[in-house]
């Protein structure tokens, strides 16, 4: 029973209580870059979940064979090859999205969440908890990405997933899209607002 509980916390803690973006403030760079629209944000989130889960499993499987002196290099090689595979798959099956995400798929390699989870969790745990940890943190990251992208696309372009949400009559009445929302700094401000709300709800996170 005891193990079941830990597995559950491993999976669900990163959703909110220990969210990699709003609590640990990791992976902010890509949050700024890919959240101007909802669709690339979702694909980016899925890519990070896949890379994080599988790199956690692989590192966990080989954790006892890795020489300590080169463990960071081994982690990087595993992450980099998975990222290349994801990027190649996107180019083959979702070309439009891969053009939109351009360099940011490659930059998953430098996402601190990955190295953080590999070093902190996968190196010390068995494959199944490591997999759950990867999925949990990936989903935690994706939740924030989607929330930010939702507000940025809705207020910046008046659309969601490319479909027009704010009706034409609003524009005729003088409403106009907030161009500032499309620029990267607004992602920071939206993330900051999410952190604010999140900390007000979870009082124990406050210093």
């Amino acid at each position, binding site marked *: 029973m005891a193990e079941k509980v830990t597995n559950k916390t491993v999976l669900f803690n990163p959703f909110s209580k220990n969210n990699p973006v709003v609590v640990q403030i990791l992976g902010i760079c890509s949050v700024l870059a890919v959240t*101007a629209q909802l669709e690339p944000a979702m694909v980016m989130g899925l890519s990070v979940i896949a890379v994080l889960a599988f790199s956690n499993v692989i590192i966990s499987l080989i954790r006892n064979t890795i020489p300590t002196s*080169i463990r960071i290099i081994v982690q990087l090689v595993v992450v980099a*090859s998975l990222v290349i595979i994801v990027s190649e798959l996107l180019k*083959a099956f979702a070309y439009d999205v891969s053009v939109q995400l351009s360099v940011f798929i490659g930059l998953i390699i430098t996402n601190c969440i990955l190295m953080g989870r590999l070093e902190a969790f996968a190196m010390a745990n068995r494959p199944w908890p490591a997999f759950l940890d990867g999925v949990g943190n990936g989903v935690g990251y994706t939740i924030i990405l989607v929330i930010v992208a939702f507000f940025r696309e809705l207020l910046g372009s008046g659309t969601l997933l490319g479909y027009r949400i704010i009706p034409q009559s609003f524009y005729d009445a003088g409403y106009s899209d907030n161009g500032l929302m499309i*620029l990267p700094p607004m992602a920071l401000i939206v993330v900051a607002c999410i952190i604010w709300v999140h900390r007000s709800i979870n009082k124990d996170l406050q210093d």
Partner: protein
Amino acid sequence: MNKQSNSYTVIYIIVMVIVVGAALAFVSMSLSERQTDNINADKMRQILASAHITPDTDIKADYNRYITDSFVVNAAGERIDGVAFDIKVAEQVKLPADSRALPVFVATMDDKTTKYILPVYGAGLWGPIWGYVAINDDGSTIYGAYFAHESETPGLGAEIAKPAFSDKFIGKQLFKNGIFRSVAVVKAGQKPADDADYIDGKSGGTITSKGVGAMLYDCLQPYAPFLQTLKK
């Protein structure tokens, strides 16, 4: 076995590199055909977009239906050997104008008129910009244009990729009194000195707008002799 010894570490790295290298090579080779198809389909979509054709699902079929001919000319307007679709414009623009291979795509529209689609390639503020310009069979009037960019500023320079910008080129003349003038992109309220046709650039996207103007001049000017043969 001592896992911290140097020989273990070296062997570990060698095995890892071989395994990872083999896996990546396999993935790359098994997907490369689909990827090339996608890249080609995207190029076809861009070529068609300049002539206001929005292909539905099967881009290749629409491309084959509308683009009835394609060939390569030199700067003297004579046809030379080569496959227009395979020419990389990005490499050609680095050559001096008179030694470039210039691809021409001929589109036959639904109303049986002929449009000549010419690729252009240049520099914006942050990275490359490119596009296609469709010209009527008088060799001077622009029928439509399509622009794309790699990394221009959203909301400012990136606006060149939107129809609101590219549609301004419709009906502009590349030739004035028989001399090639291109179409200038100028600040709103200004006019080019040489009475060329012009459109207003994007405010806030000055360097990208200038880039579009320079790109059109640099890339279309070598076509001038070819375009003049169309006129006759």
